[in-house]
């Protein structure tokens, strides 16, 4: 989408002749210190933020569901191992953990996906485990077992559909968090490196010019804010639809 609605190339069209032009008819959001169109850069930045937000959350959800559901279903030593892992993950603030991973890998999109995709699955895992535990001995699960279904088939066809609602809610709310985390890491210089446009790295550049050109700081931040707000509202809305308990509470 971005090439169709952007005005200029976000990286190549640097032109020092029109550096730090305030927002106007030609440059809707103004230009930065290298004369690049901020509107175009914000548009391209959306690619990174949304890709990281959605994909990293998909990875987290997959890990959390796989670990939590299997731990709840099988119990025993595997449950102990998963619970231990979850407790450890809960003890490390996820941004600090992601930062440690980014410090090891070289900056870039793949590293961001690894850092954010592997560090935020503990809540999903806990939830999946708890709901699986409550379903494990339900009549229809036992019936499936008597019919000779394998463990994997029971988990995927009998349990997963019934625990998915709240997990989707957590995943959606987590996307907002992942967009924020990506921006923070790029702001710290550990995520997407300049000159490629990421909202976080744009803000990091903008910090030095805040006195002379405050608009450079405003628009990328606004983009993050609106995106995360949208994802959070989507998550809240999904919770109202998918989580019958929450609906009963607000009613």
């Amino acid at each position, binding site marked *: 989408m971005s090439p169709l609605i952007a005005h200029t190339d976000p990286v190549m069209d640097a032109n020092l002749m029109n550096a730090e032009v305030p927002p106007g008819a030609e440059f809707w959001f103004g230009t930065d210190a290298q004369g690049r169109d901020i509107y175009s850069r914000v548009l391209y930045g959306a690619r990174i933020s949304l890709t990281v937000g959605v994909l990293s959350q998909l990875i987290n959800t997959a890990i959390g569901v796989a670990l939590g559901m299997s731990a709840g279903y099988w119990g025993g030593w595997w449950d102990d191992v998963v619970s231990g892992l979850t407790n*450890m993950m809960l*003890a*490390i*603030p996820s941004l600090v953990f992601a930062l440690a991973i980014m410090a*090891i890998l070289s900056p870039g999109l793949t590293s961001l996906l690894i850092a954010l995709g592997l560090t935020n699955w503990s809540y999903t895992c806990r939830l999946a485990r708890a709901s699986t535990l409550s379903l494990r001995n339900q009549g229809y699960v036992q019936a499936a077992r008597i019919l000779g279904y394998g463990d994997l088939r029971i988990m995927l066809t009998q349990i997963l559909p019934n625990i998915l609602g709240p997990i989707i809610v957590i995943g959606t709310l987590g996307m907002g968090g992942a967009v924020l985390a990506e921006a923070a890491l790029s*702001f*710290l*210089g550990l995520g997407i490196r300049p000159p490629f446009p990421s909202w976080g790295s744009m803000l990091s550049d903008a910090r030095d010019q805040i006195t002379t050109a405050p608009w450079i700081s405003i628009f990328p931040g606004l983009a*993050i804010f609106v995106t995360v707000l949208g994802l*959070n509202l989507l998550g809240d809305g999904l919770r109202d639809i998918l989580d019958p308990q929450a609906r009963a509470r607000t009613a």
Partner: protein
Amino acid sequence: MLSYLARRLIQTIPILLAVAALIFILFSVIPGSFASSLGDDGKSVLDAETMARMNRELGLSDPIYVRFARYVGQLAQFDLGVSFRTRQPVAVVIAERLWPSAQLALASMGFAIFVGVPLGFVAALRPGSLIDTGSMVLAVSGLSLPKFWLGLLLMYLFALKLGWLPSFGYGDGGLKHLLLPAVALGVSPLALLARTTRAAVLEILDADFVRTARSKGMSETRVVRWHLARNALVIVLTTVGLQFGSVIGQAVVVEKLFSWPGLGSLLIDSVSLRDLPVVQGAILTIVMIFLVINLTVDALCAAIDPRIKYT
């Protein structure tokens, strides 16, 4: 209660060890040692001999399990090693940063609690009112704001435009320098606290004991003070505990933005310098603080709510 606390304290040791192992494994696969990172800034390229000597001196040439065993042995004696860069003991480097970090975390949580909790309370007591709608819109927005952007805007407005407050740094450690970073960091816990408090109070308002209290003619002030506040406190406290952890994590970005000399900016600076002992020490310290806070919150909840029993 005491034995519960003692057992919980003992339970944190394996978690700490696991975190230490995890961080250690992560950082032992870093491509490029400290010696080589000194070399790739283009200016002071070290020759191979010097690099080998430095790696040997810093103990980086031993096999990984030897290094980990040594590390755990030192940890048990509260020895976090020596900074690669300044050659100071890591424990000393970290200790210097603890107070500024604590100041920032406490100030931002204080701000969040004293604004967020009353806001949620008032919103719940007048559901559907302008205050309710307004504060919940604020809460959702607060959760979606990138902290460093808010910090940047606050810095622009209050420091650069109005000139009321210093834009960054620690200064003499007074309130003036603390205010902007604390607000930037406190907004999202504030938003979450307002939401949680509102939900908790609404739920309690529905409870049987509140209806009973009202029907026996108890005045509204007494209902609010005796029944609502006390019962909501447990939920609020739990949220405060959880948020403390996220504040400690998020502080990394805000500290860096405001050049605040806390654990967070120490962590970032050490990461970019590949100063592994300091990075490991800082992360371990953060985890330890987080675990202690959780423990404290659990103990406080048990003290307030007689229904919570620990066996």
